[in-house]
């Protein structure tokens, strides 16, 4: 797998969809390919976020460490990005990421990433758009959930009467 292919993968990530190709290649070039054996921890919940990982090959489990023990909440596959929120908002990791089978990922370190965001407004705009999409999607999910709750409440009170 070469830089060119990594670039192709990066381009398919909605986050980077609008970024110029040369900048995206630069990002790929500055990033580091990392291989993880099965079960290896990519990043741990609560640790400071220092990089995002773009899955190139294999799969990764997203695990939440709750009081009742770890719960796998999702499994991500090729072309998906994990850990991007932590580097954007300087927050600790909100979940543990663990390799499921052999995993190869592109490690996009926070420092060069943020630097590019700061220096290339195009990139910031496309990230903003992607985040706005996510918020919108979440809003409509929230609205749907609220409607559901309201309906349930209505039904319950109807049943009680």
């Amino acid at each position: 797998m070469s830089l060119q292919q990594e670039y192709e993968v990066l381009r398919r990530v909605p986050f980077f969809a609008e970024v110029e190709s040369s900048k995206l290649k630069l990002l790929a070039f500055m990033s580091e390919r990392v291989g993880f054996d099965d079960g290896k921890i990519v990043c741990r919940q609560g640790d400071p976020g220092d990089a995002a990982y773009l899955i190139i090959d294999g799969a990764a489990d997203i695990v939440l460490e709750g009081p009742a023990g770890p719960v796998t909440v999702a499994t991500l596959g090729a072309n998906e990005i994990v850990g991007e929120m932590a580097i954007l908002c300087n927050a600790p990791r909100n979940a543990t990421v663990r390799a499921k089978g052999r995993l190869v990922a592109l490690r996009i370190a926070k420092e060069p990433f943020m630097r590019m965001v700061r220096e290339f407004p195009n990139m910031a705009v496309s990230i903003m758009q992607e985040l706005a999409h996510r918020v919108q999607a979440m809003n409509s999910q929230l609205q749907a959930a609220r409607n559901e709750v309201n309906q349930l409440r209505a039904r319950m009170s109807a049943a009680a009467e």
Partner: protein
Amino acid sequence: MSRETPPKPTPPIEDSIEPSVYRFILRHSLKQQILLLILTLISFPFLYYSLDLPKTIVNHAIGGKHFPQPLFGLELEQVPYLMTLCGVFLALVFVNGGFKYYINTLKGQLGERMLRRFRYALYQRLMRFPPSYFQKMSSAQIIPMITTECEQLGGFIGDAFVLPLFQGGQLLTIIFFMFVQDPMLGAAAVSLYPIQGYIIPKLQRKVNQLGKTRIRTVRMVADRVQETAAGLGEIQANDTAKFQLSHFAHLLGTIYDIRFEIYRRKFFVKFLNNFIGQLTPFFFFSIGGYLVIRGNLSFGALVAVLAAYKDLASPWKELLDFYQNNQNSRLTYDQIVEQFDPANMVDAELLLAEPETIPHLSGELAVANLSLSGDDKSRLVDGVSFTLGLDEHVAIIGQSGSGKDELALLLARLARPSAGRITVGGADVAELPLAVVGRRIGYVSATPYLFTGTLRDNLLLGLRHYPVLPADHGDETAKKRAKQLAEARHAGNIDFDIGADWIDYQGAGVADAHELSLRIAEVLGRLGFEEDVYGFGLRGQVDPDTSPELAARLLEARQALAQRLVRDGITNLVETYDLDRYNSNASVAENLLFGTPVGPVFEFDALSTNKYVLQVLDKVGLTEDLIEAGRDVAATMTEIFADLPADHPFFEQYSFIGATDLPEFKTILGAIDNNDLKTLSEEQRLRLLSLPFKLVAARHRLDVLDARMQERLLEARRAFRADLPEEARGQIGFFDPEQYNAAASVQDNILFGKIAYGEADATTRVPEVLSELLHELELHTSVIDVGLDHNVGTAGSRLSLGQRQRAALARGVLKRPDLMILNEATSALDGQAQTKVMDGLFGEFAGRCLIWALHRATLARNFDRVLVMSGGKLQEQGRFAELDHKDSLTTLLMAAE
């Protein structure tokens, strides 16, 4: 090994230096000067005879009529007579040459010895300077005095008496000859000498004064250069280059003016001399001619006098030159000596004496009414008194400027109190020789000085007091060494053998070098410095010729590591070197060479321009492909780094084309016609060729290094090895699984491969495994030992300040002083490291005295006693618990942090 202590040698102790160059000469070389004079006198008759002989040959042998002639009791015919005289002439030439050769050699030797003595005396005096001296005076001014300024004295000293005698004698002889010919003419010849003798010194005096100013100004130039070098960062950071340049240009201008003035005056003196010199023949022609015409003087006599006068010119000129040289040398000597006489010098006896036994400090340390005045008469330390036991750990706290720094210096005897005194067990510390103070009292400052050289030499500095064990010279070198030392004695130098073993093992509390190594490792551990030095060791080199055992053991470690990687299932973390496989974690250059370059010829960066490498690439037909690869790399790089500003940090971090070179590659890419690389100039092609050499397949992930290319690079590797000329083999340390590679680092030798890029935690896991393994194999200490050979750079500049502080602490600890004084010695360490070092030192100095001027008051908590300084006075003292109350200065100091 027998461990008899040889009697301690004593160095020559010279307390004063002669105030004038003639006294210096007479004091130290009277005998040699007399010998030279005698030799010169003996040589005179031969010289005279050799001047006289040609006349005999011409007049009697060639032009003679009466033969046979008597010679050496023989009656000789004309031809044998001529030949014999010519033989004598040849012999005389030989004898005269011999005299000259011998006298010149003797003069040279004498001058060199005296110069050596003078330099040595200056250097010894330098060591006696109070350390505070160089706060006011730059060392750059001292350097030229010892190196270049005194150089001319050597030549002068050799000539000091001989030259005036020789040339003066010649002069007098000729004058005498002239007086014999005709007293009038003789008087005429010397008539102008009194005038010259009066005027010239007068003129010379002014030149001397100018010379003095010139020397001072040149010293200022040296000073400026040194300051500029030291403050280069500040100059660039503050854009003050133009100001500095103007300052410098001004200094140079001053020198120019002085020099010009000197030239004018000097050449005027010359002019005057020449004029006067020509004036005398004027008298000869006019007065002599008149006398000849009047018949009062024979014509022959006038010619003889004229000829003699020509001979007079040379010695007279020599004498005048000597006079100037003499003036110059006296001046230089005076100017140097006056700079080497600062106030408060350490007594020479105290500096150098080596007492038979060095007593340990015992009893109480009592400080009574101790004061130190600054230059401006301010009281830096003001009437401080306290007593403490030599087993206490004492903290000194206070703000900066409170006097704690000066108090620490006074206690270490690095500053001389202006009043009061320090006693240990009743003995005045000021009167102890340095042999006692320097071994029984330790001192470490916040900005310790490390000497250029290895870390080991710096750590052992405090153990090198005098040669403990004589060097084990072979017969040959022993003789040479003995001769060198005898010569040193001739020049009044110290005659200790620098090649001897100077390490005071006893002082370090160990029996031999091996125990010392263990002790050093222990001390480094206590001070938290072990990991750093271990790191130096991993990056350091081992020469299998001088340390075959260690090299063999490191080879074992290589095997063991390979097995360990297999056992732990992490072979993917290290890509081992294999002659028949391309190493994708190594650069193209490394793959091609398959070894470590020794020296500059096959340096990785220079590989693409190396003739032999290009030849190999041509041979395997790889040149064109690599140039193409270079083009692809250049294209990618110019694309992705295109709109970054030149000073962008990404260039430094990620690009292997520098920002300044990028436009050049852009031009080259633009110059390619029709996709045909042959259209480029040879130079441009070579530029492109240089790019792929830096590529690391696993790291850079550029398409150009595909499997086929790797296969062909392997072919090139084989061709490179096969055809390599015999004489070039020494320039590469080839990778060989069975051999230790002297050119590669210890770590590379053990790994025998590259840590893999792109394997999670390879960069942390591999070093962990390596460290575990080395501990198991008991090689960890050996690696630390290699790390001790790490070169610390000029003034320790290759170490961080924290590392320098730790090295200085280790140096202080190793000599096991009875009293250790630390002056903010850990100020560069972070909190955690600080605690570790403090604990380590408390453990080390259990039962011994530790006085620590702290950079933070809160650190005083763990000490037996706290001294609180303020305004030069000792304001509070006692146990920390006693001082830790609401109104105390201690509390205030802690609150201020």
